[in-house]
Each structure stands twice: as structure tokens, then as C-alpha cells.
């Protein structure tokens, strides 16, 4: 199963949804379409607009590949759950966002679990990526930086 997510942005992301609908004739697809209207001829297995983080996590976990906008939440979940993700950044020039997502996508580009796709090549990219054997947990995004929660707790303790 391929899980597709466009996030909670109030702007629509028609480019991705249209491309994914093309994929739906060949692959089994579950889609979280957010504020984008799903075309009536789109033959996905399941679709919903928004959901809780827990349900999103379950779909990511059950999928063999995730296709998503370049949102930090979905990328981090995929890295945590060891799922390959194809990023299609929302672009300002297409009025798909307030802040261009290309910057986020580029940051993650070196991670072995992350792929950035040009929307025109999405169909062929999906086929290629699914043929890659399971990569294992090779995410490079591990570091020794302190946790934000610890920083916040320390600050609060020092100010009480």
C-alpha cells in the first residue's frame, strides 16, 4: 500500500493529488487529501481529509511507501517508523503554500529513506523506489543535541 499525505495546509495541492490519481490505476493507495478536493474518478482504496496523529501513524506504518508534501511532521514520522518517503514540495509559484517547502525537502535529501520527486517523474520514481530492497534503518538524522523538552523544563525550573 502507498500512503499519500498533503498535510493540513489551508491551500490545496492539486498537482500532487492529480498525479497520485494516475498512480491509483496501478497501485493500492490510501490518501489524506486535506483541503484539496479529490477528483471523482480517482480510484483510491481509502481517502479522508484529516485525521489524528495516531491514525496517520498507523497508515504510515502499514504502508510500503509514503508520498507526501515536504512537511516536517510526516518526514519525521517516516524516519522514525523506517518508511521510505517521496517528497513533493509545495511551491509558492503554484500558490500551494505560504512558505515554500523546497528548503525542508533539500535538508532531508541526503537521508537514504528520503527521495525528492519532480511531479512529472512521480510515476516512474514510484516504480524505481519500490524496486529498491528494504534499506533498513539508515536514517542519518540522529544527533546528540539536547531535547527541547529538557530545555523548556530547565527554564521553567529556574524561573519558579
Amino acid at each position: 500500500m502507498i500512503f499519500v499525505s498533503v498535510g493540513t495546509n489551508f491551500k490545496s495541492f492539486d498537482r500532487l493529488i492529480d498525479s497520485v490519481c494516475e498512480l491509483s490505476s496501478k497501485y493500492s493507495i490510501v490518501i489524506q487529501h486535506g483541503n484539496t478536493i479529490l477528483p471523482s474518478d480517482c480510484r483510491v482504496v481509502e481517502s479522508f481529509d484529516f485525521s489524528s496523529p495516531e491514525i496517520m501513524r498507523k497508515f504510515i506504518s502499514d504502508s510500503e511507501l509514503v508520498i507526501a508534501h515536504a512537511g516536517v511532521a510526516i518526514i519525521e514520522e517516516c524516519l522514525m517508523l523506517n518508511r521510505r518517503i517521496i517528497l513533493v514540495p509545495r511551491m509558492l509559484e503554484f500558490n500551494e503554500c505560504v512558505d515554500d517547502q523546497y528548503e525542508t525537502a533539500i535538508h532531508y535529501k541526503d537521508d537514504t529513506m528520503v527521495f525528492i520527486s519532480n511531479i512529472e517523474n512521480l510515476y516512474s520514481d514510484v516504480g524505481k523506489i519500490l524496486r529498491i530492497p528494504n534499506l533498513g534503518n539508515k536514517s542519518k538524522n540522529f544527533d546528540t543535541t539536547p531535547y527541547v523538552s529538557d530545555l523548556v523544563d530547565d527554564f521553567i525550573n529556574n524561573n519558579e
Partner: protein
Amino acid sequence: MFNRREFFVVTSTGGHLYEIERCLSANVKRRSVFFMPLDGKTSLISGYLTVKHIIEPDTKYILYFFLFFQAFFWVILYRPKIMISAGSGVCIPFFLLGKLIGAKLIYIESKSRFISPSKTAKFLYYFTDLFIIQNSSLKKFFTVSVVGRMHK
């Protein structure tokens, strides 16, 4: 006159919500009033003292005017000691009013920011007491900031 609530957590939905959920300990959550835009689509916010819904202004500046009055009501009612946010702009009225009543302000810049800071961060940097970034590449913009990372 009113019960003072210790902490305010103010955040937008989507990635901001995801980040704040992973940036706060259970202890902070259970002492916090949680403010998020009313969209009814992302539910199951748990562990907080209480959850309140506010206006999501997005890029409609007129809505900030109404949000300011909402923030004024809650800030006067609860007089929080500490305010925490991971963006977006919904936190600005809360932070400005919080500063006026002497609350300590904690801002967490989004992890999606690597090259350039968000407008909200650039504005609130001068008001916050603890400014946390998640990518050290932003140090050049926020010299008095601390680099931290989210819990998995």
C-alpha cells in the same frame, strides 16, 4: 478573582502541532492551557489541563484583530506565568499581551527552517525569554538562542 493558570501553550495546526507535542514534557502539559485554532480536524490533543480554540488568521491580517481580543480575554482571565509556542502567527497576540503582564515567553522555531527564519520567529525573537531553534544553521539569525531537538 480568577484562577491563575500557570502555562499557556499556543500553536497552529499541522506541523506546528506535531512539533509542540514532541517538545513538551508530560509535566508541562498537565499544567498548561492549550490554545489551537478551531478546525475540528485534528483531534485527540491530550494531557493538557484544558484545551481552548482560537481563530486561525492564516494570512488574513484582519483576523489578527479579532484574535487579539480573544487573546486579551484569556490572558486577563488566567494571567499565565509562562507562554510556549512553536508557531505560527497565532501566538503573536498572546506573546505580546503576555509580555505586558510579565509572563516568560518561550518560542520554538520550526524544524522546517534551515536557511531562513519564519516571519513570526524574526518578530518574536526580541520579546522571548528563551528562544529555541532546531537547526544550528539559524544561529546566524538568532545569536541568543539554544539549539534543541524534538523527542521521537
